[in-house]
């Protein structure tokens, strides 16, 4: 029975990719049917991921060797405690796809629906593949699947501005992808292996060489671009704000996390190969702290709600990176939990913002004054999401930020603890601005006064996610307990 379960791991990747190939065929009959088909594929993938997570808790990490070729020669897929984040990942897709059914009407031309759904499934397959693979070259390939589908998804709504934002994203993203490929080539030339644990073992056995450090450094820079860590974030705001809202939710909540998962992989590799990364940890802390404050600071000045949410993502990536850099067990665990929590909150916020934009046709805070009166349910969801991202208890954002802060103070890094608090203060300011506009101002635009709540296929996922923000916050201890055993593998990298 054990073998049977571990052999289902590759299907997590295969299902969405095969589904993506079938979407255009389904869409030839009826563009609407493609949406239903995509939903079913994401649902099956999510069910499998959840089942595997349960098996993981019962019997430990599941490993599959593609095609029966054992590691280090074959391609290895590992479903471990870090890889288990594919379960919430797939669940978010299950919620985003039904939201897109009605959202696409009027925003994306009908002949592009097939492309939209196919790209969403490709994105999901790539994200899962990236999170599970233990093979360096497949890491690069999965990353490219995610990146390419993301570029295309940004442009899918089809106007010239979207294409320009997508191209900016593409040019920076491709350079970072090339750096990853370069690092893979370097590590392969050094060790003659592509399997991550095997590469680490061979690096540990060999004499320390500057080339290995160069490889890890270029991996780190590349993943920092993918994660939109502060000075490398320039591609993010435009791409995330211009994309259709379901795409923004996926990009901002999930796709930037491949940079974080990549950084975690670098830490793992460094930890198990004995390469000391003191400077790396310090750099992560400084950049993380700067990102927290600058991201939140820039968000204050945005009038466009989606642009504001995009800057808030930069700030939250700062929290995660700071937590990883601190290297205290609490901070790292908090950072890993925040990967999931931020995904949940940001998907909620972008879908709620998308509903508001879809129902009113307006997207700036000035225009949206008083929208809380005409769209009470959607705005309540948005408010819950805002409270969660500020990190007020008992919502999802609280426990992860609390542990990152706790880690900062316990590691004696008081300055970073204060950066965290200041960041939270800025975040509080801009979300108070938003709530003030929504609830305490009189409508100035007649579109706002005439707006009605969106159809249930859009409202349902938004309300469900908003409820989840609170429920996950209350159950945050379970997430921490789940991730704690994985933290130990990452730590020697920074401590040594």
């Amino acid at each position, binding site marked *: 029975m054990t073998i049977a379960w571990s052999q289902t791991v590759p299907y997590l990747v295969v299902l969405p990719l095969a589904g993506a190939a079938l979407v255009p065929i389904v869409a030839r009959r009826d563009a609407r049917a493609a949406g239903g088909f995509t939903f079913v594929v994401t649902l099956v993938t999510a069910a499998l991921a959840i089942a595997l997570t349960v098996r993981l808790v019962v019997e430990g990490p599941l490993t599959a060797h593609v095609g029966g070729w054992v590691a280090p020669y074959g391609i290895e897929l590992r479903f471990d405690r870090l890889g288990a984040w594919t379960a919430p990942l797939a669940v978010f897709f299950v919620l985003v796809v039904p939201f897109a059914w009605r959202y696409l009407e009027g925003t994306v031309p009908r002949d592009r629906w097939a492309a939209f759904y196919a790209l969403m499934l490709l994105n999901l397959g790539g994200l899962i593949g990236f999170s599970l693979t233990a093979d360096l*070259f497949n890491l690069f390939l999965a990353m*490219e699947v995610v990146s390419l589908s993301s570029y*295309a998804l940004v442009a899918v709504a089809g106007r010239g501005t979207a294409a320009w934002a997508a*191209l900016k994203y*593409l040019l920076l993203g491709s350079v970072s992808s090339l750096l990853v490929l*370069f690092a893979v*080539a370097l590590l392969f030339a050094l060790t003659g292996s592509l399997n991550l644990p095997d590469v680490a073992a061979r690096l540990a056995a060999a004499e320390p060489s500057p080339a290995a450090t160069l490889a890890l450094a270029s991996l780190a820079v590349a993943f920092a671009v993918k994660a939109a860590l502060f000075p490398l974030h320039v591609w993010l705001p435009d791409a995330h704000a211009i994309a259709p809202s379901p795409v923004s939710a996926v990009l901002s909540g999930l796709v930037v996390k491949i940079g974080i998962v990549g950084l975690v992989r670098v830490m793992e590799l460094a930890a198990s190969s004995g390469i000391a990364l003191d400077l790396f940890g310090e750099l992560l802390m400084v950049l993380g702290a700067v990102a927290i404050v600058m991201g939140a600071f820039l968000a204050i000045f945005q009038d466009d709600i989606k642009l504001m949410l995009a800057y808030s993502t930069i700030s939250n990536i700062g929290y995660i990176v700071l937590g990883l850099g601190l290297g205290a067990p609490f901070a790292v665990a908090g950072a890993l939990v925040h990967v999931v929590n931020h995904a949940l909150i940001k998907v909620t916020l972008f879908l709620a913002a998308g509903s508001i934009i879809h129902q009113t046709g307006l997207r700036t805070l000035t225009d949206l004054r008083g929208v809380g009166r005409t769209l009470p349910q959607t705005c309540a969801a948005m408010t819950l999401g805002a409270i969660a991202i500020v990190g007020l208890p008992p919502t999802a954002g609280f426990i992860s930020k609390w542990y990152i802060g706790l880690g900062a103070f316990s590691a004696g890094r008081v300055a970073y603890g204060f950066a965290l608090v200041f960041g939270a203060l800025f975040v509080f300011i801009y979300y108070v601005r938003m709530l003030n506009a929504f609830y305490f101002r009189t409508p100035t635009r007649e579109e706002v006064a005439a707006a009605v709540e969106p159809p249930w296929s859009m409202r349902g996922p938004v309300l469900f996610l908003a409820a989840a923000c609170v429920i996950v916050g209350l159950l945050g201890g379970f997430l921490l307990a789940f991730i704690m055993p994985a933290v130990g593998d990452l730590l020697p990298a920074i401590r040594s």
Partner: protein
Amino acid sequence: MVLFGVDVDYLAFVVLFCVGLYMLVRKSNLLKKLLGLNVMETAVFAFLVTSGMIEGADPPIRTAGTGPLFANPIPHAMVLTGIVVAVSVTAVALALIVQIHAHYGTIEVDELKGLP
């Protein structure tokens, strides 16, 4: 190949990579930026292929005619796959450039910056 203590292959790769990066960063024309990206890709592929050439190693399948120079087949497979990825990226980028031109009437970055 080693000349004057410098590995010329790797040096060529570094130079090519920097030329590509320079084009990507400095050129204003989007098409030229894309060409720069392609040059960088070629540089990484060249490095990947070169890293598979090991003098004096045993080839995995030995027949009567095989010589002493051994080429590791794995980097070749990786480069082939990498080229497919690079072509896809180029195709997507070109499609986006066509859309940008249709909408704005220009593909010069300094002219695009002022436009909404």
